[in-house]
């Protein structure tokens, strides 16, 4: 897919929504929806995406859309997909329809994890997309289990005693791979062609699929709106957010930086890590770099790729 061709594909998510200037998720979902060939029905967890795109009596969705609550988009879409199977079996519907559930990292990693696990385990044919902006941004930048270690959030504020979030993020993509569903992938809004290709694969999977897509939150990350894509790119280039896919149990690396950037370079782009560059936090920066290196090595092993 060439970019000019992608631009010509019909938009299922229109302009006029009320996301912030420089918000990452509209880019993410537009690319994913453009990869769908069939009509789609979208479900959305409560969060920025939902509250900015469906302010009654307006909607930014040119496809059927349902939102019920925060922690249950996977369960809600299980019901929609079950209804489709039932009515199709009865001959009341004859066309192919693609089902997509969107949730932020709050609705996916944390409050919605049970509902997500249940839906994937039951084998509903739906694609779950986590637009991962590494925090509870809709409620005002609180930590989630996807928030990076050291990040300043409103529930892990960087203070004189505590340097931001104490824990590393949970490896949700690996947790979803452990469900042994046909297709799991980690992607970034910055690598649109990779994301488009992965969305295509997810839609074609014979069963549930899960995409974990890094999507910048310029407010929560404290970056300039025009840097949205660059910051997501930086996360990939420093191995904080590696791109890979797990297809029928086979781990495959999608992208290997020629020379990985230091994590500190990526952090410097964002106000949420500002305090880590104080001299008293230099040890923490080193510790985080070591962890990212270890995680990267482990991923290379899983993917059968030789390290440096």
């Amino acid at each position: 897919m060439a970019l000019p061709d992608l631009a010509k594909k019909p938009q299922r998510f229109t302009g006029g929504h009320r996301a912030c200037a420089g918000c990452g998720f509209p880019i993410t979902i537009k690319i994913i929806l453009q990869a769908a060939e069939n009509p789609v029905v979208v479900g959305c967890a409560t969060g920025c995406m939902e509250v900015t795109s469906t302010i009654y009596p307006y909607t930014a969705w040119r496809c059927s859309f349902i939102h019920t609550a925060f922690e249950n988009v996977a369960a809600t879409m299980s019901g929609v997909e079950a209804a489709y199977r039932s009515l199709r079996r009865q001959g009341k519907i004859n066309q192919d329809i693609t089902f997509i559930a969107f949730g932020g990292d709050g609705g996916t990693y944390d409050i919605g994890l049970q509902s997500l696990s249940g839906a994937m385990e039951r084998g509903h044919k739906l694609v779950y997309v986590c637009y991962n902006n590494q925090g509870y941004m809709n409620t005002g930048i609180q930590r989630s289990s996807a928030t990076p270690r050291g990040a300043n959030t409103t529930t892990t504020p960087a203070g004189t005693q505590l340097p931001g979030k104490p824990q590393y993020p949970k490896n949700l993509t690996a947790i979803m791979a452990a469900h042994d569903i046909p297709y799991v992938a980690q992607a970034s809004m910055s690598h649109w062609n990779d994301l488009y290709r992965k969305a295509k694969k997810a839609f074609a999977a014979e069963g549930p699929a899960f995409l974990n897509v890094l999507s910048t939150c310029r407010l929560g990350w404290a970056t300039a709106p025009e840097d949205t894509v660059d910051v997501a790119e930086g996360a990939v280039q420093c191995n904080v957010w590696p791109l890979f896919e797990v297809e029928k149990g086979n781990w495959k690396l999608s992208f290997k930086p020629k020379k990985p950037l230091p994590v500190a370079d990526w952090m410097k782009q964002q106000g949420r890590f500002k305090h880590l560059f104080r001299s008293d936090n230099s040890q923490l920066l080193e510790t985080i770099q070591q962890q990212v290196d270890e995680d990267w090595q482990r991923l290379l092993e899983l993917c059968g790729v030789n390290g440096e």
Partner: protein
Amino acid sequence: MAVAVEIQKTAALTGNEAAAQAMRQINPDVVAAYPITPQTEIVQLFSTFVSDGLVKTEFVAVESEHSAMSATVGAAAAGARSMTATSSQGLALMWEMLYVAAGMRVPIVMPMVNRALSSPINIHCDHSDSMGARDSGWLQIYSENSQEMYDNLIQAVRIAEHPNVLLPIMVTMDGFIISHGMENVELLPDQAVKDFIGEYHFPYPLLDVEQAKTLGPLTLQDFYFEHKREQAEAMYRSKEVILAVAEEYAAISGRKYGFFETYKMEDAEYAVIVLGSTAGTAKYVVDQLRQAGEKSGLVKIRVFRPFPGQELSEALSGLKAVGIMDRADTFSTQGGPLYLEIKAALYHAANQPQCINYIYGLGGRDIDPPLIRQAFMEVKDLASGSAAEAGPTVRYLGVRE
């Protein structure tokens, strides 16, 4: 239509079996459910219908009740007739989604087997679970026995899906007392039920992808109130629908239902009001009292939401005293939920009977004829003005204290 009356089949069924048979005959497109005592048998039996191809249903064995209600809402909104079933903690876990179902106007029908709420944990009957959900926007119908559970479930489909209503509805029966007690139930022929309920037509199905729908948008100060006002209006309109559906159901079954049932009330001077299975025992006590020359009567509430306040007020006018029996407490120090509703309904009545409240049977505590008789005698004393002293208006019956 009346043909069905003659070809009904009598079967010895537990309440759970009767509910499962009703579900088999309703034959929903989707059932998403999670087992919980004492409802479990419904889910198990329905699963065997699915396994044996007796229903067309897509059965979703979800991982929790929250997901059960979420999936049922999704399926109903997609355009499929959808059901679930639960009890107690399961209903409590659904709480958030009960309000979503009602606000989204999806006509889900749910058998609800009444059981006490934790803590302490208890698996036996009281009405704390459904009473806690009384303001969630669901219609609520209470059943005295297995036959009523069966009949109410079938009628519930028509009521919920009526275009003037479009609201979810829970049909309850008392856990263990009814759910696990066996009695004769008259079952309609499958075809009669199919004809009676007709096809499901949700006006805004998600799966109509040619005309995309947005369900569950953010609605702010400018429209939220209008949506809620419409929802309230649907509840008002449901009263007429409930009675019309009851008429039609009587024509095919020979069994007629209303908002409530009156028993020996024609010349009664005092009465007791109950919900659920206690009505059966209370009728036996009324019969005994009547043989002894007492002018006692009984009112059994069937429809609790919408609450038939005006109709009840008329039925109770002229009585000198009523005892209102609640199998749940509100912990408000003002009495049980049924008591509060009835007192409010009587506020504008010209001849207000005196009201006392009995909270009884929590956690499955037996309610036996002597206890009900005690309640009747106290109400009688109140009616005749011969009570030695007024006593508390909220009384706890059959408890050690």
